[in-house]
């Protein structure tokens, strides 16, 4: 087991390094000149040239990447003489538009995204899996058709549509909730919940629909396996057959899907954050793309990638815990 964990961690690390190189290269290959974007329309060529040097954009590409990596571990100071500014480690760059270090920007918006993702995850995974199992057990009966039909409807609507629909009816028309205005939970828990509940429901509806279908299909497949028949032939009660033998095998792929979906959301739920004006990672990423703020784009992509890689490792390790064939081979 231990060699497997070490191997998996090393691969994860390698992927992160490759991801950082790739993102770095990609954005340097873009036609936009990062130096020209540092000071808006009224920029003189001299300022641009000066900024180019201050940001280290005049160096060869490999050296720029090297500075970037060094900055990540040691912190980075831009410019020279009196006009310097320092981003402490782990530095992901400096945004001239915002006048802030990218890391600090991301750290300030990350909690919003984490609250959004984790809350929605809890709201979708529990009903999704339970309803999936339920409809597998009620196969070909009206209960299954109702659940699966509803899930299909939920799955067919795009999230911005569900979000706007909820916003329109619940906030504007019926005025059951105040207009979303994000406040951290520590300063006003009630307003926090009032703001988050609709985004949570929006994401949960979308994902729950997917997880109902996934769980149902997995359970149906597992319940058709020979070892389920063996469990019945042993005389085990049906609740043990399904709840122990069926679930253990049927839920394994769901662990994978859930881990990756959660990680994807932690990288920013762009649409839902925009609809509900939540100041999270997704909105930061969207803004930076619209403003061609390259350092922030690089930073947000790296953070999103980081979550995916870490989730992959965790999922693989969980898999090894669940399935002895992975652990021992």
């Amino acid at each position, binding site marked *: 087991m231990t060699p497997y964990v070490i191997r998996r961690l090393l691969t994860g690390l390698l992927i992160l390094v490759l991801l950082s190189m790739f993102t770095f290269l990609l954005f340097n290959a873009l036609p936009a000149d990062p130096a020209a974007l540092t000071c808006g329309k009224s920029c003189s060529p001299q300022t641009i040239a000066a900024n180019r040097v201050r940001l280290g954009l005049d160096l060869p590409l490999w050296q720029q990447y090297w500075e970037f990596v060094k900055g990540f571990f040691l912190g980075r100071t831009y410019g020279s003489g009196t006009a310097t500014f320092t981003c402490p480690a782990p530095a992901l760059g400096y945004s001239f538009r915002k006048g802030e270090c990218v890391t600090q920007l991301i750290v300030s918006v990350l909690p919003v995204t984490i609250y959004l993702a984790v809350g929605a995850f809890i709201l979708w995974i529990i009903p999704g899996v339970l309803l999936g199992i339920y409809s597998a057990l009620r196969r070909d009966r009206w209960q299954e058709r109702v659940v699966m039909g509803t899930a299909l409807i939920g799955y067919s609507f795009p999230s911005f549509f569900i979000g706007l629909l909820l916003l329109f009816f619940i906030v504007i028309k019926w005025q059951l909730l105040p207009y979303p205005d994000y406040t951290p939970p520590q300063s006003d828990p009630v307003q926090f919940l009032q703001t988050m509940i609709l985004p949570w429901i929006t994401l949960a509806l979308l994902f729950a629909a997917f997880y109902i279908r996934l769980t149902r299909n997995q359970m149906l497949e597992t319940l058709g*396996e*020979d*070892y389920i*028949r*063996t*469990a*019945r*032939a*042993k*005389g*085990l*009660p*049906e609740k*043990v057959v399904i709840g122990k*033998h069926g679930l*253990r*095998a049927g839920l394994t792929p769901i662990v994978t899907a859930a881990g990756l979906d959660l990680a994807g959301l932690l990288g920013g739920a762009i649409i839902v954050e925009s609809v509900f004006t939540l100041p999270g990672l997704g909105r930061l990423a969207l803004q930076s793309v619209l403003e061609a703020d390259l350092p922030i784009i690089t930073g947000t992509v790296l953070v999103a990638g980081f979550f995916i890689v870490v989730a992959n490792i965790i999922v693989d390790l969980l898999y090894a815990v*669940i*399935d*002895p*064939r992975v652990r*021992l*081979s």
Partner: protein
Amino acid sequence: MTDAYVRVDDLRVAFPTEDGTVRAVDGVTFSVDRGQTLAIVGESGSGKSVTSQALMGLVNARNAQVSGHAWVGDNELISASDDQLRKLRGSVMSMIFQDPFASLHPFYRIGDQLGEAVRVHNKLSKDEARKRVIDMLERVGIPNPERRVDDYPHQLSGGMRQRVMIAMALINGPALLIADEPTTALDVTVQAQIMELLAELQKQYNTAIILITHDLGVVADVADEVAVMYAGRLVERGSLEDIFYSPQMPYTVGLLSSVPRLDAVTERLTPIAGQPPSLINLPPGCVFEPRCNAAHLVGGDRCQTERPELLTITPTHSVRCHLEMAQREQFATESLAAALGVPGDES
């Protein structure tokens, strides 16, 4: 009805579908005593597996209509409730399956899977159950059972897994063991070992065995009685000698002729022409008539219009066929001789 330990009387299993009712098992009657082995023989789709699953209560009651009677000892199976059947499964009657690779749960240690079978029917602590599991693993010939008990199924070979399945089936000393093609998925060398093991354990536990197979070689080795099934019904039933030395039904003759034999002179096998009928639209007469080489010997169109009854021809032997006794025997002798390619019989 005999007073045998396991008795099945007029068992019927039908699956209503959109295209019509599939009569998978159509009035099957047989019996097996403790310590005896009944082999149910037939090709795929003949209803032999459905018969066994119906006895175990493993056919889905929502999709199937099961009728008739079946007793194991004093327990009537067909009218029993789900819970009564569950209590009998694994204790009074148990089953082993064709594919030992798929029949064990890949995520649980074999010791846990066997222990579960012990503890669901007996009030034993985990430690006591484990002792019994290790003892049982030793009985089925697993080397180092104290260590192997903690293995996962994928760490065992196919033969070892089937031994584990046998251990699981016999661990509560059932009166009836149904073995559904227990050796089909195994290597030929392992097949013989498994059948030997079953025979040995049968003596120890005095178990009645219903062996479901299409392998007549296996039947010849272990069966006391043979029931031949075709299209959901029994077409011939008799002792091992009856079936192998004086087969009466042209279908049984066909099965015997299609077995590859080392002493055969002809190089080609003699298959039975055609396909089994659809179980939805069975022919009105004899179900085997469309493939039967002897049907022309029967006068008129009786084979096409009249269902033959199961005729008792000796106390141990019965057959479902319109042919006269003499015709049946002549047909069997000639067909088997032709399959063997005995010189002088070829004209």
